[in-house]
């Protein structure tokens, strides 16, 4: 599985001071959680990591090779992204939507094969949306669409998973099952990197945390060092009460 590293990376947010350059390394087996207030650049960071946006400065490399020098198709076999919002301009079924995840793996002349279909169906099963396989995506609820988008990434099966608020719109049970799924993917050798707003999900399921502050400051490290009330209070400008439950920290607004 590939390793994504950033060297002195500064994401490009117009009109903002550079702040702290990021030196991250997404290792197999890790689940990264990115926390920060609205507008701090979490989505921009994810898009930059995926090579969809130019950084202001710094280098990105995939297995020690500069990301910009690798063909897009090969990049997309190694790294995939679940977007925060999706375009549904044209009607498409759930199964068709998951199947586009196979695109990086097929040559231009190939049609989707039986094994591609099997991979997509497995992903729909894992995300609990296989009963919707023939429904049009634009008729689904927000949470169902979110799970279809994650199933599409699972069908793509890259080594590095980038997810922009994957627990948005999900009910409590599906939030948990998605986080468990991400944990399992990491346990099987993938690197998972997600933005989220729920401190307790981050505390329960992420092992590495990146905190992004509005002025461009940032810090990162193991979850137990990062998820401490004073830092989080400064991060969100919100007083917090914390306790420990079952070995994990829990935060509620104070």
């Amino acid at each position, binding site marked *: 599985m590939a390793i994504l590293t950033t060297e002195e990376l500064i994401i490009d947010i117009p009109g903002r001071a550079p702040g702290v350059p990021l030196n991250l390394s997404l290792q197999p087996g890790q689940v990264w959680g990115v926390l920060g207030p609205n507008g701090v650049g979490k989505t921009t960071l994810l898009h930059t990591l995926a090579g969809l946006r130019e950084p202001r400065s710094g280098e990105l490399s995939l297995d020690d090779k500069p990301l910009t020098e690798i063909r897009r198709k090969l990049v997309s076999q190694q790294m995939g992204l679940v977007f925060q919002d999706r375009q549904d301009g044209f009607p498409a*079924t759930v199964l068709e939507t998951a199947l586009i995840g196979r695109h990086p793996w097929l040559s*231009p002349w190939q049609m989707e094969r039986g094994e591609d279909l099997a991979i997509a169906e497995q992903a729909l099963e894992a995300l609990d949306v296989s009963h919707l396989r023939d429904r049009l995506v634009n008729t689904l609820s927000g949470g169902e669409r979110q799970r279809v988008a994650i199933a599409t990434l699972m069908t793509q099966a890259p080594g590095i998973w980038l997810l922009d608020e994957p627990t948005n719109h999900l009910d409590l049970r599906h939030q948990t099952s998605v986080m468990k799924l991400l944990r399992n993917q990491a346990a099987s050798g993938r690197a998972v990197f997600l933005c989220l707003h729920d401190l307790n999900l981050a505390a329960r399921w992420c092992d590495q945390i990146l905190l992004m502050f509005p002025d461009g400051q940032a810090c990162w490290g193991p979850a137990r060092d990062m998820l401490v009330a004073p830092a989080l209070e400064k991060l969100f400008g919100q007083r917090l009460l914390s306790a420990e439950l079952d070995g994990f920290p829990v935060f509620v607004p104070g």
Partner: protein
Amino acid sequence: MLISSPLKPMLVLVLASLVAGFLSVSIGSSAIGIEDTLRVLAGSGSELQQTLILDLRLPRTLSAFATGGLLAVAGALMQVLLRNPLADPYVLGLSGGAAVGALLAMLAGAAGYLVSGSAFAGAMLATLLVFGLAHGSGSWTPSRLLLTGVVVAAGWGAVITLILSMTPASRLPGMLYWLMGDLSHATTAWPGLVILVLVCLLVFPLGRALNVLARGSLQAAALGVSVRPLEWLIYLMASLLTATAVTMAGAVGFVGLVVPHMLRLALGNDQRLILPACALAGGTLLVLADTLARVVIAPEQLPVGVITALIGVPTFLYLLYRSR
């Protein structure tokens, strides 16, 4: 995207286009029976019937087929490019540009190839104008492109009215027919048919990338599609198709909008199926419309664009009303 049997709808469409073509060459001011038509197509039959079918009607039928196919495929491509089912060469002002080119040539007293060439130049100019302006200094967003096209199209409309109001009355009928789309001056169908077949062949290796692009450019890039080169390729293909069609038959409206939409309602949105299907269905529609245009008020002829709109509008509205 995953079609259970893509062959069946394609076979139906091939059959439909053959039937339409057959009807089109046998029906006319002098009707020719089925047996006689078959005999002529097989290479025998009377000399008069041979001239009538092979020299007069068949070229026109082929031109109609090519025009319809080109317009439908161009419309389908632009809809993917703009991620908007409302896009088509007319909405984007491409045919407006072609019309201005053609009318200016006619106003100057030109005919034949000069008019065609001028229409082609007008279509290409309009494309450059729309896509250049929409590109601007910022990004190339679909909504900006569509809006630019709509506004440019309105501009062409004004220029067309201006030209018409300056034209001596004796030259007006020819211009009006051209504006409404007219196949009676179509001479050779081969360039159009060749381009149509080439584009349909190109669609097979490109099809899945187009499917991904229809989900948005960022999603496509994340799945390994080289978005910018692909968008330019689609744009160039669609412009070339439109310019060729408009050059052959004038401004035939509605085919590029209605045909892809109807096929998507029936067949889903796999471009590898939809684009060849558009070529066949668009061609069939225009062959039938042209046949009607020739016979409804025979010996006078209607502009084929009137028929496509009269058939297309109610069909489209009905399908839209019934769809989910």
